[in-house]
């Protein structure tokens, strides 16, 4: 039987994933990826070796009787995830670093290094399911609709899929916690991690300031309407994301939302909720888990984590993919992911490059922007 590498973050989900595999008699090796340091000065970075996640993962691994190692992937993570995160904000987009990490860093690095340890399969604590058949492997939404994490995994290279296992994918979060308690795992009641792992304070603008220094993205600019009318000033467009209402100041006749960020002029464009609705989505960096669907296919697309999917037609496929939504959606945000599903099955996805409102859609009674 082949050896399985379990990616252990130190949280309850991956703890239980590891425990379930060990319990089932598999040859399991636990690994925690050291992705970044809270401190950026080299002298202090050594203390990062004691990150809580690593400590918890080690305690769990010891309790369930499996070896545990730390993979230092700081360089790759900084290049592929943190640098990208900063660059995206600098360009007026809203990145999703978890998507980036799962697609670019985590599983790829785990597989490469895992092979050296004789591991042919990788397991993680994601709430997704995977079906392996002779025709290929298919990623499915998790059994717990509330916790489903398929949205984050569209970037996984297709050739890795046959090697993946998601032991908690069928379970609900409360079932996972119950299993962890039964097993006496120290992580059983550990709170969910919410914020971006490398922005523990929750304020990503601090990170941008540190990494960008002086940059137009952090300089004052105008808040404008689509008409060009200046309605206010902002203190750096990097602080804004499409759909955002906070931070625009008040005193408007109607609630205003960020429609667009224009890095070239440092403008933040605002408008009404109606103006926020869009139905054409262009995605780049598309990745497919199987054969790409043909143009004209009707699938469901999820435009944000936790957003409900909307039916869409693939209009064209090329370097970019153009999707037309059956119904317009608010706040389609460049930088976020558009993930395509066929029912529960993850088909593929991409990064949202642009979005627009098509004129003269028959179900729309809104005036086009």
């Amino acid at each position: 039987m082949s050896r399985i590498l379990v990616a252990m973050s130190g949280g309850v989900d991956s703890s239980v994933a590891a425990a379930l595999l060990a319990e089932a008699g598999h040859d399991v090796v636990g690994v925690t990826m050291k992705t970044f340091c809270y401190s950026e000065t080299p002298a202090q970075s050594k203390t990062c070796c004691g990150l809580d996640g690593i400590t918890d993962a080690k305690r769990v691994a010891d309790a369930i009787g499996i070896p545990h190692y730390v993979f230092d992937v700081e360089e790759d993570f900084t290049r592929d995830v943190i640098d990208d995160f900063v660059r995206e904000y600098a360009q007026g987009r809203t990145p999703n670093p978890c998507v980036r990490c799962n697609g670019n860093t985590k599983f790829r690095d785990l597989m490469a290094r895992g092979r050296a340890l004789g591991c042919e399969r990788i397991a993680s604590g994601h709430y997704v399911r995977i079906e392996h058949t002779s025709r290929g492997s298919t990623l499915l939404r998790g059994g717990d609709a509330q916790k489903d994490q398929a949205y984050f995994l569209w970037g996984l290279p297709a050739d890795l899929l046959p090697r993946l296992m998601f032991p908690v994918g069928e379970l609900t979060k409360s079932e996972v916690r119950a299993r962890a308690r039964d097993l006496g795992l120290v992580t059983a009641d550990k709170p969910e991690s919410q914020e971006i792992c490398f922005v523990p304070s929750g304020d990503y603008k601090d990170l941008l300031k540190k990494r960008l220094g002086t940059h137009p993205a952090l300089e004052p600019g105008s808040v404008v309407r689509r008409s060009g009318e200046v309605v206010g000033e902002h203190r750096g467009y990097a602080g804004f994301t499409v759909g955002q209402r906070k931070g625009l100041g008040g005193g408007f006749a109607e609630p205003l939302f960020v429609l667009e960020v224009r890095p070239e002029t440092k403008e933040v464009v605002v408008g009404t909720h109606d103006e926020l609705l869009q139905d054409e989505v262009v995605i780049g960096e598309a990745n497919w888990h199987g054969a790409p669907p043909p143009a004209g296919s009707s699938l469901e697309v999820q435009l944000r984590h936790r957003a409900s999917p909307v039916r869409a037609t693939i209009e064209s496929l090329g370097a970019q993919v153009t999707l037309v939504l059956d119904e317009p959606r608010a706040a389609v945000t460049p930088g976020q992911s558009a993930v395509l599903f066929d029912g529960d099955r993850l088909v593929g996805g991409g990064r949202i490059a642009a979005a627009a409102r098509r004129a003269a859609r028959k179900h729309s009674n809104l005036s086009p922007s």
Partner: protein
Amino acid sequence: MDATYLDYAATTPLREEVAAAMAPFASATFGNPSSVHRWGRAAYAALEAARAEAAEALGAKPAEIHFVRGGTESDNLALLGWCDAHAAGTAHPTLAISAVEHHAVLEAAESAGNRGAARVVVLPVSPDGEVDLDRVRLAVEKKPALVSVMWVNNETGMILPVPEIAAVVVAAGGTMHTDAAQTLGKVAVDVRDVPVHLLSATGHKLHGPKGTGLLFVREGTRLSPILHGGGQERGLRPGTQDVAGAVGLARALRLAVEERPLEAARLTGLRDRLASALPAAVPGLRINAGGAPRAPHVLSVGIPGVKDGGALLMALDIEGIAVSGGSACLSGAAKRSHVMAALYGAEDPYAAVRFSFGRATEPRDIDRAVEATARVAARLRTA
């Protein structure tokens, strides 16, 4: 699975004789050695007996032995305590350290340098274990100057020419410290023969207790405490002494020194068995510091074509062979070794593996290690 421990340079198990010697001081004879009463007197007597035992093993006087709480603390006290004691003058004291020092020396020197307490000079070391004595002379030209060079390098087992360096330093009017954590019981050390002023040791490398250490301070050497409190250990290390620890350290040290001639020969045999078998099993393998005189309990090798030295150690662990690479940090995330970089350059294409041997190591452990290393290295080269 049968596991083979070949990481005695990281730490060693406590010897039974040592545990037995320590036992009374964890229970019945628990007194504070500074107390006036009989409990205190009993503890004091044991502490001073331990001091005498340790001193004798090193060729020192009992008053020159200071018990501290580990090798790192001993190194820090030597370097920072010396800097503090020499901070009064206008000139910056000089701290000259070798490029292959343990982090306890390296970081202590860096810290002194960063806060302006010393000018730090790093002395290069060749892969053959050579230190340029002219550079040493140059470094100590400006007084006051402390030279700190470890006797046996922990990562490679390389023996550095501490007696020669100490002679140069003393002749030039400098102060000499050596970190002898990996040396005692492996290489003959007698401070009557080697003019070091300060010498650091720890118990846990000698089958003694963890968290114990000593600093030999030659009579007349000026040193300030780095911790402040009661006046224990002649004012150099305040805090109620760990009597059991001191007793354990002294006993482990004495036994190691007494047994050294035979044990060192036995360990050398094991080391050489490994050194001759590995190159045949792993093509292109390099014996690190192969041209240097080396301590009997360590063999460090460089494995070519393996990008990820950390994975090599993990894979060996899965195969049941416990070894080290460079220094590992708390979490076990492998960092590039400053020692390998100092000897072979930052772009050295070899992954270092350190095998180290102790009292329980037998020839069949060596043979197992050879087989496992061959298997793992072959897999990693293709991975």
